[in-house]
């Protein structure tokens, strides 16, 4: 028998997880769409955001400082990696790009393990959002509610940047046809660097704001990376709205299935992904030719 209060609370969990996945996947998908590189280190960047935030938190005891540190640090890592390594791979086969980002992911994870050990670290939620809130029909942890808002704001910010600014217009044009953008006299490589930075920052930001919910450990990014892939396949590669839709779908599937049996969460995710692949091979909101 379904316990309805439990069910609704799981739906909320799904929403929170979904919004988070949407944010991380947006980062992955705009990087792929613009640069043509699938960043297998994206999960590790999520993890790096958590750790950078945790370090800042232990020094300042300020959650805001932690969020800034987490996002900025990962953005810098993204830019450095793009300038130092990834840009030499644009002309190389996709397989090489996958291999090098995969290797970078391992280096990040193992470097963190080296400096901070394998034990998980916790970042407490900011004092404002501690405790639980009664929503009338159920009680729910306050920080998770706040997280929903925080992530929604971040997604909105990403939307504004992508759809309401000049640079966003260039990025979206780059997703459609980066060669054309280049021939219009826009320095597409500068855009690439920026996109990689923003995409990485999305993962880093998600990593730190999620830290109060799920404590951080060096391998926390791996599961996230896999879920992100499913989101992108469902939503359609290179599609920002697709990442959001896919994220919410994946979040709800994981949460609701977990209510019955967590072991089947991935099976259901996989079923959803297969259905999409069979019925709409380019993803729900994707278009052909972005492969």
């Amino acid at each position, binding site marked *: 028998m379904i316990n309805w209060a439990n069910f609704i609370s799981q739906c909320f969990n799904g929403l929170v997880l979904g919004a988070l996945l949407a944010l991380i996947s947006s980062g992955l998908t705009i990087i792929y769409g613009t640069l043509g590189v699938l960043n297998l280190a994206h999960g590790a960047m999520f993890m790096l955001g958590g750790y950078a935030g945790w370090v800042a938190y232990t020094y300042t005891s300020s959650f805001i400082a932690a969020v800034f540190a987490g996002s900025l640090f990962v953005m810098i890592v993204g830019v450095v990696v793009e300038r130092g390594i990834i840009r030499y791979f644009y002309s190389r086969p996709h*397989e090489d790009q996958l291999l090098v980002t995969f290797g970078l992911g391992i*280096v990040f994870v193992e470097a963190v393990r080296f400096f901070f050990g*394998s034990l998980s670290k916790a970042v407490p939620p900011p004092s404002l959002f501690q405790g639980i809130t009664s929503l009338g029909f159920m009680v729910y942890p306050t920080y998770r509610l706040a997280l929903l808002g925080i992530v929604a704001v971040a997604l909105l910010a990403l939307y504004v940047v992508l759809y309401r600014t000049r640079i966003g217009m260039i990025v979206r044009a780059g997703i459609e046809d980066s060669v054309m953008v280049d021939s219009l006299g826009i320095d597409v490589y500068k855009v690439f660097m920026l996109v990689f930075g923003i995409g990485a920052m999305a993962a880093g930001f998600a990593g730190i704001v999620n830290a109060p919910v799920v404590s951080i450990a060096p391998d926390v990014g791996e599961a996230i990376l*896999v879920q992100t892939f499913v989101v992108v396949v469902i939503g359609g590669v290179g599609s920002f709205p697709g990442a959001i839709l896919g994220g919410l779908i994946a979040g709800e599937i994981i949460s609701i299935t977990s209510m019955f049996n967590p*072991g089947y969460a*991935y*099976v259901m995710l996989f079923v959803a992904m297969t259905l999409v692949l*069979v019925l709409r091979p380019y993803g729900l909101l994707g278009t052909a030719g972005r*492969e």
Partner: protein
Amino acid sequence: MLRQRPLLVEILTAVGLIAVPFVLPYLGFTPTTINRILVWGLFGLGFDILFGFTGLLSFGQSAFFGTGGMVAAYLLTIVEFPYVVPSLFVGTIVATVIGYLVGLIALRRTGIYFAMITVAIAEVFFFVEFNPLSAYTGGENGLPGVPAPALYLGFTTIRFNTDWSLYSFLAFWYFIGTVLALRIVRSPVGAVLRAIRDNPLRAAAVGHDIHGYKLTAFVVAAAYAGFAGGLLGVMQGFMPPDAFMFDTSGQLVMQTAIGGAGTLFGPLVGATVWLYLSDFLQTTLHIGATWKLVLGVIFVLLICFLRRGLIGGIEDLLAFVTGARKKAEPPEEAPVAGVTAEDEQRAAAAEMVREPAIAAMPARHRETDRKTGAILQVKGLTKHYGGLAANSDIDFTVNHGELRGIIGPNGAGKTTFFKMLTCEIPPTSGQILFEGQDITGKTVTDACQLGLTKSYQINQLFNRLTVRENLTIAALAELRGKFRLDLFRSLKRVAGLDEQVEHTLELVDLVDRADTPVSDLAYGEKRRLEVGLALATSPSLLLLDEPLAGMSPRERVETVLLLKSIARGRTMIIIDHDMDSLFELAQRVTVLQEGRVLVEGTPDEIKGNSKVQEAYLGGVHGVLAAE
């Protein structure tokens, strides 16, 4: 490299495997490490066929490794089935079947999508093994108590329960695995797989069912993974659940890349380096868990600087060292004066023989020679891209044996028209009849199998293969059909293959360049090979999209001669902007303008036609008037 002296590689492998126990321990390898290297090497043989040879990078091989291992271990422990090798085979079969099913889903997409899907599917297997199926797999504990293999000889039983006896067991299977993999790689299927890696579009266009072949490679890789997984359990006496983990897939990918993909032995070399370093860093340098960080850094550096892995690097180094000597050697043709004279004679003879040789082109499409009437009929062919009409309502008929030219200003829709004829893109409306059969809506592969193919405006070659290999790929499609599972047949035993390839080499005048990699060819030679690829499928109707594009005047003259010789006994349609050449070649010419047929007639009629003159010159006036 793998092909020139077939048995040599097998013998060297056997010798190497026998020598290992006498050599490697002195280099600091423990027997356990050596055994693990063999399991990973065997796992990697299949993976290399998938990744190195077919170009499909899967991050989900752990699913099949784990499945094969768990099924075998389950039979040997919980079911208490006493026979090790049959259990391994059952595990392999289950992994193979699952590989087939997973392949059906994962291969719906290519490139990075394929990589992402394989990761996701492998993760599903991991969770299923851990949770819903934990009663069978032991969940996070795995399955302990896997027995050692034994050989019943009647009078005595050999048990492979010590490190070195186990080594002989593993080495035996590694050897079998290598022999089979070498046969696959040298088979027609192996050739097609390499073609898919280099240029999947062209592989499909010359008539291969590339989806079927990709699935084949995927299933082969799953089978190897399943067997290797079973061996892992047998080797350790315990089937660990981490066989299912993403790390397993990742380690396999990294080992293959470190050793060098596309070499079959790359994964073995990579595993040797990987496992040796991990042992060395942990036990000798005592750096604990940091070994993985060090290996990760090494891996990233290797990917950045040594694109083809260690084996590729060694090959390049050898080529660099011996390169100077090779270049100093005179070309094969002129070593001795006497032979030169002979060669000249032979060349002259070949020149004379050439025409009869062309007439004797052996192909199933030859009977179409004697046919008359229309070979191709097109009715109302239309293609819209959104609001843009690339082709509107084209009616077009070509008779058997005809050589038709198509001209038209840029943007007239010539290439779009060709793409629809070869079924590369579906028409918005209209019908295409080829030899009386409706081919509208068929695939480019089927069209080619029926005898209709084209050479591309922009070269679509298999760049990492030699000229001969390129033509072999095309000829195989005609000789074997679009899909055939002759995995263990040697290329040499495909009847008629050599003749067809040699013949095409002569036709496109690339005999001297037969064993040159495409990447080393001059532009004009590539252009001829482009025509040769289409020709080697023995088409009854050959479409040529701007065969003269980008050629020097001299090359043009040569190529026109070449096209004339090809045209004998063949139906061809040629698009080109070089009107002098085209009018010289074609019997009739069709003029396209703005996606419509403007006029059709003999070259002389077209030359004198005022509409055509207007289309080419008057277009300017039209634009000016519009402004």
